[in-house]
């Protein structure tokens, strides 16, 4: 490589490398190392070996939090991110194209809304007072108001996260459905297949790889997303909806727990990374063996 080429390379690549190094690689490595320290708000690197991991094993909340995480990930995935995403994709592909694009736009909107604003909207819908949308409906039907968030914390968590999560599956599935050769669907229609038959015999079999892809990808995403839980139920009532990632955050930063246990928080986060890596390796193998490394088609307009 000539000197000039090398100079070009450095000039073009260096900013990216520096940024990634300082704000990505160093924090990642540091989180890993911090997991072996008892670091708190004084920021001292007092190594305590496996102390945090022993504490984790003894932590009486961990069982509950593991269970919560499972309910959260599987529940949201099964109801919204995959199933409802698929329903939306099929329905928006079965009507006029412009209308389909409109509804997809509507469902993508929450994803681009600032999380606090999205939370405000749901706080209004779910308000325990009679100002809330759902309670208004109940009053209208002659029922009493109820406190949705404390009465049905899991329903609330799954629905609020699902309204954001469904859109990714929707977009990917809709693109996959669009890329099915028209002949197949037309041939089926000419042969008199009903709409449901068309879905069951043509659409579903032909998008099974995008289905697997979304399931895999969104499992990992849900495992690490907690901002809407933090905003809407704050993990309560009494850790009732605290998932692993939120627990790690609470331990390290929460003002009301007031502990600033950075070491323990880092250890909890590290476990999450390990789970994520194992899961992606499993998915990687499944996908690779089935040779479906090609990603779904991208444009949807």
């Amino acid at each position: 490589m000539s000197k000039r080429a090398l100079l070009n390379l450095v000039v073009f690549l260096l900013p990216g490398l520096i940024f990634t190094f300082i704000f990505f690689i160093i924090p990642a490595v540091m989180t890993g190392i911090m997991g072996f320290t008892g670091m708190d708000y004084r920021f001292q690197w007092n190594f305590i070996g496996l102390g945090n991991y022993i504490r984790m094993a003894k932590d009486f909340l961990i069982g509950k939090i593991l269970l919560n995480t499972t309910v959260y990930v599987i529940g949201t995935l099964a109801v919204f991110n995959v199933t409802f995403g698929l329903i939306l994709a099929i329905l928006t592909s079965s009507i006029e194209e412009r209308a389909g694009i409109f509804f997809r736009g509507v469902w993508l909107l929450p994803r681009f809304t600032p999380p606090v604003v999205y939370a405000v909207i749901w706080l209004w819908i779910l308000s325990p007072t009679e100002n809330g949308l759902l309670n208004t409906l109940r009053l209208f039907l002659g029922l009493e108001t109820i406190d949705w968030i404390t009465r049905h914390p899991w329903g609330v968590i799954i629905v609020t996260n699902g309204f954001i999560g469904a859109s990714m599956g929707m977009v990917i599935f809709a693109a996959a459905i669009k890329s099915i050769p028209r002949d197949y669907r037309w041939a089926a229609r000419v042969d008199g297949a009903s709409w449901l038959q068309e879905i069951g015999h043509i659409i579903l079999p032909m998008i099974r790889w995008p289905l697997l892809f979304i399931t895999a990808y969104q499992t990992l995403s849900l495992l690490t997303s907690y901002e809407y839980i933090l905003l809407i139920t704050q993990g309560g009532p009494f850790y009732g909806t605290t998932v692993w990632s939120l627990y790690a955050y609470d331990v390290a930063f929460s003002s009301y727990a007031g502990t600033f246990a950075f070491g323990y928080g880092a250890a909890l986060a590290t476990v999450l990374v390990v789970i994520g890596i194992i899961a992606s390796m499993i998915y990687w193998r499944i996908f690779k063996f089935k040779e479906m490394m090609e990603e779904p088609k991208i444009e949807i307009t």
Partner: protein
Amino acid sequence: MKSLRKRNKVPRKSNPSSTVEKREVDFLKIGIYIFLILASMPIFLGFLWLFIGSVSKSLTYGIIPEGFSFKNWRFLWEKPYPSWPDIWLVSLNTLFLAFGVMIIVVAVSTMAGYVISRMKFPGRSFLLASTLILHAFPAITLLIGLYYVLRVLNLLDSVMGVILARAGLFIPFAIWIMKGFFDGISWDMEMSALIDGASRFQVFRKIMLPMVGPGIAGISIFAFITGWSEFIFVITFIRKPSAWTLTSYVNSVIANWRFVDFGLLAATSLFYVGPVLLFFIFTQKYLMQITVGGMKGGR
């Protein structure tokens, strides 16, 4: 497939059955529309309420306005709480955050994406693979390490710190997208320019940049909205009121008047989400091209 094959054998008559079928399809479509509208109601009504709730004296049945009033917009000229910063300072901070993330991400990722797409150098494939692996690291797992790094750099409690951290996490993903856009451009023009004696940088600036316009537009919008909406980094790294962004502001409104002052909640939220709404309506096409490639915040 079985049932389909069975149907195959039935000879089809032309006219009468097809009109029946058409009517059937129409009913189906109406059904689909009704379902989609009902399912989208929380989104429709939620955003509608932001508008109505912010300019009404009070609401009956949660959403039907009674009397017009700007009292909920008072926060624009007087602080709802004495210790809070001025809303315009907060808005400037938010704008700074959004533009900061946008400029850094676009500049850095366009250059790196170009080199990775076009130049051969040792470690190229390693670099590509590692950007992909980095993308699998979600922000939460880095948060504690980032807090330490920002503290050492004396960037806690400053918008700049959030800009750098958010841009740093965004860059690997943006490099991938930009590389994809450069890959899609043919080599011919570039080659002839190079042969005619243009430098790499000239080729990049004069020939390549104009051709990846849609990619740059997409990344810009995406980065802008990401910065504008940033939540976790802002509430974690910024506590000092003078460095608040609109996220901190609305978050404080929630903390103080969670189920009490819905008017103020609606007005401040609308103030915050307004620019995003405009952006979203006008740039949806670009956004969708990028959305699918990778996901915001790993979602």
